[in-house]
């Protein structure tokens, strides 16, 4: 009986000494891994939406540029008709005036199409960044639920959105467009986010982490995307363009 007592005493002492050590070690490791994993996830969410937002704008620009042959054809036809109206014989002049009215109507229609493309691309691109805001809020909410804390850690998302960077190459009713010089650097979408993690974590963990380890009280992150010229076409890429 005494022998048994002596053994359990030794095991108890060993356990009492080692258990906190193991616990601290495991909690510390788990905390670092959890911390990095969540930060990584939030970074990826940011990049995913900012890339999608850029892609939508690039696709819009491409559709706009695809209308250029038609726009320049109409401009050339109108110039030729103007020349006929100015210097042509009266019968040709009458025909030219009638034809010009049709060309102007076609240009007005094309202009509406061009504006529609630009506005739709801008709207969808902005909407994608609003989705990013919602996704960040949802993630912060999930973290609150995970730690069973009240949802005080609302993320702050600052969006720097740039509209389509196209310029008019040949001005007219329906102009011919081109990409602006330094397109890569001009059309950069930039998002900065911050989540007050100290408000999401439970109080006991916050006290341990911030009184002992002095971790940052907020999670910060930023992501940006820019148009990048590929082999065949433009695509969106991470970063703020060529440095």
């Amino acid at each position, binding site marked *: 009986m*005494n*022998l048994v007592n*002596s*053994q359990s*005493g*030794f095991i108890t002492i*060993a356990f009492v000494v*080692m258990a906190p*050590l*193991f616990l601290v*070690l*495991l909690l510390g*490791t788990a905390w*670092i*891994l959890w911390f*990095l994993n969540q930060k*990584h*996830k939030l970074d*990826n*969410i940011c*990049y*995913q*939406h900012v*890339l*999608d937002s850029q*892609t939508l704008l690039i696709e819009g620009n491409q559709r706009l540029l695809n209308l250029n042959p038609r726009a320049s054809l109409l401009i050339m036809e109108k110039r030729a008709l103007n020349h006929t109206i100015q210097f042509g014989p009266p019968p040709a002049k009458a025909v030219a005036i009638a034809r010009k009215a049709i060309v102007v109507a076609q240009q007005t229609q094309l202009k509406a199409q061009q504006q529609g493309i630009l506005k739709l691309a801008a709207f969808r691109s902005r909407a994608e960044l609003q989705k990013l805001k919602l996704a960040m809020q949802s993630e912060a909410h999930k973290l609150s639920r995970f730690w069973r804390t009240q949802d005080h850690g609302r993320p702050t998302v600052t969006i720097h959105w740039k509209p389509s960077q196209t310029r008019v190459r040949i001005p007219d009713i329906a102009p011919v467009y081109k990409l602006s010089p330094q397109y890569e650097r001009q059309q950069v979408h930039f998002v900065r986010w911050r989540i007050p993690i100290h408000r999401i974590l439970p109080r006991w963990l916050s006290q341990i982490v911030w009184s002992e380890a002095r971790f940052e009280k907020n999670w910060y992150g930023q992501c*940006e995307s820019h148009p*990048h010229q*590929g082999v065949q076409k433009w*695509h*969106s*890429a*991470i*970063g*703020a*363009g*060529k*440095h």
Partner: protein
Amino acid sequence: MKNQNGQALLETVFALPTILVLVGIVLIGACRFTTHYLMDHWVYQSSLCMAKEVSSERCLRQMDRKVQMMPFVRYSLNRVVVRKNRVLIELTYSSPVQLPLKIIEHLRLPITSEQMRRSQ
């Protein structure tokens, strides 16, 4: 009574090394796991930095600053490739409790939003 004390001492003499070995294994395991995870994470961050068209020197300096936080870790860069269509970093690291281990991070460019979605 004397006999029992002797028994306990004998047990301690045998049990202590076993416990120390077990504790050592767990400590070394946790240390190796955390080191590998952190190194892998920092190498990935560095390759992402290069994918952003930031100069490789700057990205590697940032990574070096982070690795310096673990003074027991030594590393050497084997290969850094930055091309238009890919970024590759290959390094070997070691620590007093870790034999040299290789980490290869290969990013295909352009990084798509789909890739980001999958790695969440």
